[in-house]
């Protein structure tokens, strides 16, 4: 108890006082020697002394101690404290490279057996932590990485420690990135709220309200309920709380809307290929999910190639992976179509079973080739993180990308079907195969191209999915039923049907989810689809007569 008090005092003194000189003082050296003794109390005190120097070199040493890299080495009659580096094997022995504790000057490589590890047990680690934390936060505030600065600001705000106010103010003056600046201002307000005088606290409360600070809610709520505070303070807190709550409602609505759009875009991307194949050819492709898996695995392979051959271009791998995924899936689709599906036109139930069989084979093939475990597809840096639209609302980049990709795919489909000769031929064959044949359209080729197109889109969807989910052999299974729901609801008459169905299902699902939870929201959607089909048995836009208009 006494020791902890002493440590606390040392720590506070350290926070308040100026930095010590950057030399190895004798106290520090004595403390260093103390680390090797058997007495935990003395070791704890030693840590306190070393930390109080606020010398970065001693703080680095403490970090090494915490990580278990500090050893004691016999040198004549005394023990020398050293920091150990990498352990290697030289011949028969295990050796370790050691450096001095303060300067990190290389001493040499010695056998592991000749040094004894100084274990940092829990008490020691607890003693080390505050020094390193404060130092780390300070260092982080000056870090070049914006996210690290923001994290440090948040931590300072949570700690609401009076001593940090000056540092935060200084950082605000220098800060250029808006969301980091926001976090810093929030931290400052929280510190002032915790430690200032009544007038300062009123201002701080108003500031928090203006900043729409969610992190400040608990502190504001405490202030509003504090009986010892003045009326002005409590009122300011209440006003701020209401401001933040209104903002929160706005944020939540926008968040749900975005999530709905994100889900809708994913469904659309998955269902587009399926809708084209089903709508234009009447083939129900149960292997659609596996074509998506193939696209995902192609992305994985491209990622590995980039990692091995061109690591400096790693961020570009995804851009290359998209067309690769499209092509690979399209090729497999062509093989599937020309090889087996061609024999089953006009028999949709049979194609359903056939393609299911193909899907099992592809799945097991992937499992045997790549292993049963999921594989790791890393996000390129431009797809990690999010766009902080407003306080409390971050739109992840990967989802924004998928929304963009879905929109582009739809636009590309429309252009292809209505703006090119190939599209014209596709539509012709769908409307009247015999007549098109008579007019010189090679129906067989058109079938293959259409199926390849649908399969390629599936591959594209698979590549996109690697950024938000797992990549494993059973990736297809997770999404196949959702894709079918969209196609069946949208009907095969128009592409617009698929778009509307995806939007409807995605939006509705996310809208219901906060109330019912994920599972029951999904069940509700499935039941709604079943009921919807009562009114429109062939989907939103069914084909009329025998012709298909897209």
């Amino acid at each position, binding site marked *: 108890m006494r020791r902890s008090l002493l440590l606390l005092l040392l720590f506070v003194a350290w926070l308040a006082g100026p930095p010590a000189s950057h030399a190895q003082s004798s106290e520090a050296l004595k403390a260093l020697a103390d680390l090797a003794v058997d007495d935990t109390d003395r070791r704890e005190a030693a840590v306190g002394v070393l930390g109080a120097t606020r010398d970065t070199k001693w703080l680095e040493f403490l970090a090494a101690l915490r990580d278990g890299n500090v050893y004691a080495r016999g040198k004549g009659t005394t023990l020398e404290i050293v920091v150990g580096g990498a352990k290697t094997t030289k011949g028969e022995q295990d050796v370790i490279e050691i450096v001095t504790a303060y300067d990190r000057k290389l001493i040499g490589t010695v056998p592991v057996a000749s040094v004894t590890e100084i274990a940092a047990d829990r008490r020691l680690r607890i003693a080390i932590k505050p020094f390193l934390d404060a130092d780390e936060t300070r260092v982080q505030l000056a870090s070049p990485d914006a996210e690290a600065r923001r994290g440090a600001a948040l931590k300072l705000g949570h700690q609401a420690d009076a001593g940090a106010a000056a540092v935060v103010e200084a950082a605000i003056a220098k800060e250029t990135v808006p969301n980091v600046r926001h976090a810093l201002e929030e931290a400052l307000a929280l510190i002032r709220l915790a430690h200032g005088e009544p007038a300062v606290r009123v201002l701080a409360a108003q500031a928090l309200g203006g900043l729409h600070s969610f992190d400040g809610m608990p502190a504001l709520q405490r202030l509003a309920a504090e009986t010892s505070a003045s009326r002005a303070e409590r009122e300011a807190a209440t006003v701020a709380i209401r401001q933040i709550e209104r903002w929160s409602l706005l944020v939540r609505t926008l968040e749900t809307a975005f999530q709905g759009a994100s889900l809708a875009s994913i469904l659309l991307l998955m269902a587009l290929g399926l809708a084209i194949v*089903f709508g234009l050819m009447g083939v129900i492709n149960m292997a659609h999910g596996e074509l998506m898996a193939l696209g995902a695995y192609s992305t994985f392979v491209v990622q590995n190639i980039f990692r091995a051959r061109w690591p400096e271009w790693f961020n570009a791998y995804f851009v290359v992976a998209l067309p690769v995924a499209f092509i690979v899936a399209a090729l497999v689709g062509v093989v599937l179509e020309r090889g087996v599906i061609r024999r089953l036109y*006009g*028999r949709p139930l049979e194609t359903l079973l056939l393609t*299911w069989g193909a899907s099992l084979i592809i799945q097991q093939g992937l499992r045997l080739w790549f292993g049963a475990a999921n594989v790791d597809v890393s996000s390129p840096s431009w797809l990690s993180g999010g766009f902080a639209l407003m306080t409390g609302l971050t739109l992840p980049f990967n989802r924004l990308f998928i929304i963009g990709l879905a929109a582009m795919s739809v636009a590309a489909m429309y252009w292809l079907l209505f703006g090119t000769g190939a599209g014209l031929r596709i539509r012709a064959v769908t409307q009247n195969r015999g007549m098109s044949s008579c007019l010189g359209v090679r129906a067989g080729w058109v079938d293959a191209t259409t199926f390849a197109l649908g399969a390629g889109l599936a591959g594209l969807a698979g590549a996109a999915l690697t950024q938000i989910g797992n990549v494993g052999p059973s990736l297809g299974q997770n999404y196949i039923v959702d894709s079918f729901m969209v196609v069946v609801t949208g009907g095969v008459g128009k592409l617009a049907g698929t778009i509307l169905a995806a939007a409807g299902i995605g939006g509705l699902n996310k809208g219901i989810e906060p109330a019912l939870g994920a599972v029951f929201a999904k069940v509700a959607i499935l039941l709604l689809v079943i009921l919807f089909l*009562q009114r429109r048995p062939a989907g939103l836009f069914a084909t009329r007569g*025998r012709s298909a208009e897209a």
Partner: protein
Amino acid sequence: MPRREAAAVAAAALLLVVVLPICNALPASSALHVSDFRLNLFGKFLAYAILALGLDLLWGYAGVLSLGHGVFFGLGAYAMGMHLMLEIGAKSVYQSALPDFMVWNQVKELPLFWRPFYSDVFTLVAIVVVPGLVALAFGFLAFRSRIRGVYFSIITQALALSAWLVFNRNEMRLGGTNGLADFKTIFGFPLNQPSTQRGLYAVTALALLVAYLVCRWITGSRAGKVLVAIRDSETRVLFSGYSPARYKLFVFVVSAVLAGVAGALYAPQVGIITPAKIGVLPSIEMVVWVAAGGRGTLVGAVAGAFGVNWMQSWLTTSYPDVWLLFLGGLFMGVVLFFPDGLVGAVARAFGGMGRLTRGASFTATPTESARSRGPSSTGHPRPEPVARPPLQ
């Protein structure tokens, strides 16, 4: 039923219902002994065969492909399972009248919908009625709105997925992902006794016999002919004055009831029922039993159920990596090369039967001309299978 067929059925019945259990009762040293393990396995296969019969009736004869029959199977199995759980009573680990999973979920009182399952009679009735009612409701909505073909299959998938999601939730008080397990007695007979297992097996075999006779009767009757007509051309049947929806609904309910009975016989023999049997994948596997055996022939359904499951047992023991490849290949092979299934292929090998339309041995392959017509944009089978020269 013609005499030769009756004789064959009787012979098979004798073998399955009487001979095999007796072989099981023989001492282990005897050459004719059938081990408990084997008999139990057969019992499971026979339960599957009942399910396959129902599915065959629905798909092979009426042309309605349901990819969600796991739901009805599961409903029957859960009904029986609930009763068995309540039978355990104080013999469980927690020594409570409540099923185990309720105790660790901190449920204090038995939920209302569980209470009637204390009664044997209610359970037996529920096994038949619950799947039937669900099928009635679903089928009524679906067939009345003329949802057909692929659309119907896909919404049965939606049904299967919803049921799977719901049964997996703990709040439903049905055991969640663990399902219902650890049964101790059935109607008072202890489940770990070989004699009980033998009895269960015999009951299953009998049930299969009854199911076969019922299906045979349906397909041999006029209703059976209407069903086949619906399969081949629904619009024409409509214009001929029949109501296809009613016939389809009838056979849908019958197949659901058969599935429920199959599930109820499956649960005590396997000892566990989980939502894993209700979902999308197991339902599609059930379809491949019928396809591989030979749809449109009742015996084919039974043979398929037996054959495919036996292959699964064997392959997962000897060549585990191969099982899924085999299953996938089976799907594809059956659809492409053996549309009449194993039974059809064997029969064809035994001296080309020219005419495929004879009594109970209908096969469900559409006529040749439809194949050359190219893809259908609506996804429905062409309404007019009239022979025309191929266009390509």
